[in-house]
């Protein structure tokens, strides 16, 4: 009996082998560093949510392409009134949600009103949704947004994960079981390990989708990320963390390594209200004391573009301000003396877990020591950072990367954790928002960037690179991250 069983088992294995090999071509396992806390990007702030859901499960009215351009998605086309306060969207006809409900203008109205509601926790609530004065739906395929004030970034904002369109009946449970209009439907979530999406046959362009099943696996430890890639446990890692091992992976023909850019503005954030940092000379001294090149070399394996303000070269209207404070320890010392700071000055430098902070922080501390600033390093977890630094502003210096695109407006909020309170800058941001045309807007944006650099609000270091590693046969993954998303609709195996 047992011999016979073995023969049958062996036959089964051989029969299954070709099928298994074929099936491997339409499944994908992607690695991600952090697990999202929920799956509703309109209520949760974690960037990891959008990495799973954006353009896969949920869609917005617009789509942000890999190069940062805005293209139509759920909206077929739109017109903007001359005063830039009224947007009329024509919606895609024949679109359905994954639970079978049709997509209409009522869903857009419902979603945006939910995002603007008093109890909304949408992280773009104040900057986008609360500024919508009225939402009109003259017919099921037309939406008219009337704004309280001009928002030149509106079309971009609607393509971010915070602008995802939800369906009223399923919205309440979207955090655990997301339902959208995208090409992939939620299948399974093994907490602490992985999330699986499967191709949704009801998608309007389902025949163009090459993948059948996508699994996101969460691997935080950089060494474990390398191990997972080398062992083939993951097919791709779009935001790979182990930058020191790139050389090894680049020389391995099994993998392709792509180096792109993100919107992550890595900065040494300064508490502008704490003495002696309330003195602009002291903040400028910090800027002179820190050598961006050394930080990039040590914390980011030499990858990363230096920046001189809170804006990246990918953004419209970028001006290069990196020359404003060249690395000059002597000048930094002179400025500290001029400001009457007694050295050595004892300050704390709080560092969240990512390598750009933990390794970059050691370099920053060593450089500050050269000019007589004794920065005591405190390694903290994200929860402590969010509560102590971000919420309660209890810090002197910290290192963090702001990944939200085009977010100059945070500096107009005197209550933001930098505690930068400048009427002049607020006026400049007002000028950006009310600029009559694009040329005037870019000019105002340049002035705003320059103001932040001149006030040395923070020490602006570099743009976080995006390093993606994938099996050589895998194509179509984004190599740049204008927003944190993994658009899988164009991903295929060859």
């Amino acid at each position: 009996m047992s011999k016979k069983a073995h023969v049958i088992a062996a036959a089964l294995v051989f029969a299954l082998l070709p099928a298994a090999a074929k099936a491997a071509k339409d499944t994908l396992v992607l690695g991600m560093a952090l697990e999202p806390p929920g799956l509703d990007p309109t209520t949760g702030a974690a960037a990891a949510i959008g990495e799973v859901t954006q353009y896969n499960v949920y869609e917005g009215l617009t789509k942000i392409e890999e190069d940062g351009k805005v293209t139509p998605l759920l909206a077929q086309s739109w017109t903007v009134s001359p005063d830039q306060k009224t947007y009329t969207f024509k919606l895609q006809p024949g679109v359905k949600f994954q639970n079978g409900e049709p997509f209409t203008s009522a869903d857009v109205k419902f979603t945006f009103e939910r995002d603007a509601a008093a109890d909304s926790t949408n992280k773009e609530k104040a900057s986008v949704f609360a500024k919508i004065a009225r939402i009109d739906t003259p017919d099921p395929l037309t939406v008219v947004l009337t704004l309280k004030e001009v928002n030149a970034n509106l079309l971009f904002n609607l393509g971010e994960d915070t602008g995802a369109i939800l369906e009223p009946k399923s919205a309440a449970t979207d955090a655990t079981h997301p339902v959208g209009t995208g090409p992939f439907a939620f299948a399974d979530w093994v907490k602490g390990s992985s999330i699986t999406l499967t191709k949704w046959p009801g998608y309007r362009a389902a025949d163009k989708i090459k993948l059948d099943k996508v699994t996101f696996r969460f691997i935080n430890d950089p060494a474990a990320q390398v191990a997972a890639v080398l062992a083939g446990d993951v097919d791709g890692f779009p935001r790979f963390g182990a930058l020191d091992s790139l050389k090894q992976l680049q020389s391995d023909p099994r993998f392709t390594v792509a180096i792109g850019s993100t919107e992550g503005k890595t900065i040494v954030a300064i508490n502008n209200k704490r003495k002696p940092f309330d003195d602009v000379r002291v903040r400028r001294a910090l800027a002179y004391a820190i050598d961006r090149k050394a930080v990039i070399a040590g914390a980011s394996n030499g990858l990363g573009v230096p920046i001189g303000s809170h804006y990246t070269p990918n953004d419209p209207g970028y001006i290069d301000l990196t020359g404003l404070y060249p690395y000059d320890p002597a000048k930094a010392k002179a400025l500290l003396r001029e400001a009457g700071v007694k050295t050595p000055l004892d300050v704390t430098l709080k560092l969240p877990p990512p390598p750009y902070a933990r390794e970059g922080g050691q370099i920053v501390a060593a450089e500050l020591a050269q000019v007589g600033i004794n920065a005591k390093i405190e390694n903290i977890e994200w929860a402590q950072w969010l509560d102590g630094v971000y919420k309660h502003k209890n810090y002197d210096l910290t290192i963090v990367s702001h990944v939200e695109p085009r977010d100059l407006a945070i500096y107009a909020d005197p209550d933001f954790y930098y505690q930068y309170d400048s009427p002049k800058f607020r006026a400049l941001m007002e000028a950006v928002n009310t600029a009559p045309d694009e040329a005037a807007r870019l000019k105002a944006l340049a002035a705003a960037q320059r103001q932040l650099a001149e006030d040395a609000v923070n020490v602006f270091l570099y743009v976080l690179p995006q390093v993606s590693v994938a099996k050589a046969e895998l194509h179509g993954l984004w190599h740049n991250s204008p927003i944190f998303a993994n658009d899988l609709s164009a991903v295929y195996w060859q």
Partner: protein
Amino acid sequence: MTTATTFPARAAGHWSFLVGGALTLALLIAAGVSLLWTPVSPYVIDVPNKLQLPSAQHWLGTDALGHDVFSMLLVGAQNSILVGVIAVSIGFSIGTTLGALAAARGGWLEEAVMRLSDFAFAFPAILTAIMLTALLGPGIVNSILAIGIFNIPIFARVTRGSAKAVWARDFVLAARAVGRDRFGITVTHVLPNVLSILIVQATIQFASAILWEAALSYLGLGTQPPQPSWGRMLNDAQAQLFQAPWLAIPPGLAIMLAVLGLNLLGDGLRDLLDPRLARRR
């Protein structure tokens, strides 16, 4: 024959005492030397020369930021000894006092001290230390405190147990008969008789303290950069496991040898100091 004259002779033939002593001495020498001299300053960041293999300039290579690993190892020994000495001193002084008091007074005081130490034992040591440092904030002072606090019930128990036995001995009864008070008896009779046991315990706790400090630093709760610590070196090496696997060996070996040395020394001391064992030989 008395212990004093035979101690060196017996010690010379006791291999675990000798090996343990030698390893502990090496630890002390490493820390001592690093106070005066290191090949390269362990605080110097030299990014262009990161992740180098051992060479004439960098005897054990360099880490991810270009720190000299050998220098960090030497200075890390200082750190381990500092944590060990202070943490064990906290535990020793408070624990022994409480234990001796419990044994001398008996009654509700003894009950209270012993139940409290039971309570402390109910929590795994390392978890307690993690909780304390998470609560008080990371840093070397707080990790010393956390380890020290955990040492208190250990010393309290050992002291109370052995002191109880001494209290039942005839010479203590004699002292009580002539009217000595409990405090006097504790100082002149009880403590000298339990001291050898406490020394052995202190040696072993010293080893545990080094291990705990390494564990806390490994988890990022102990010594903060740039101060070198063996535990944090291990953590840093873990991140480089695929690029520079050799980085994990020096701190791992250092922790192992230091803990092994102190444990062997403790074992040896127990054999050599225990009067009953001495008489049997």
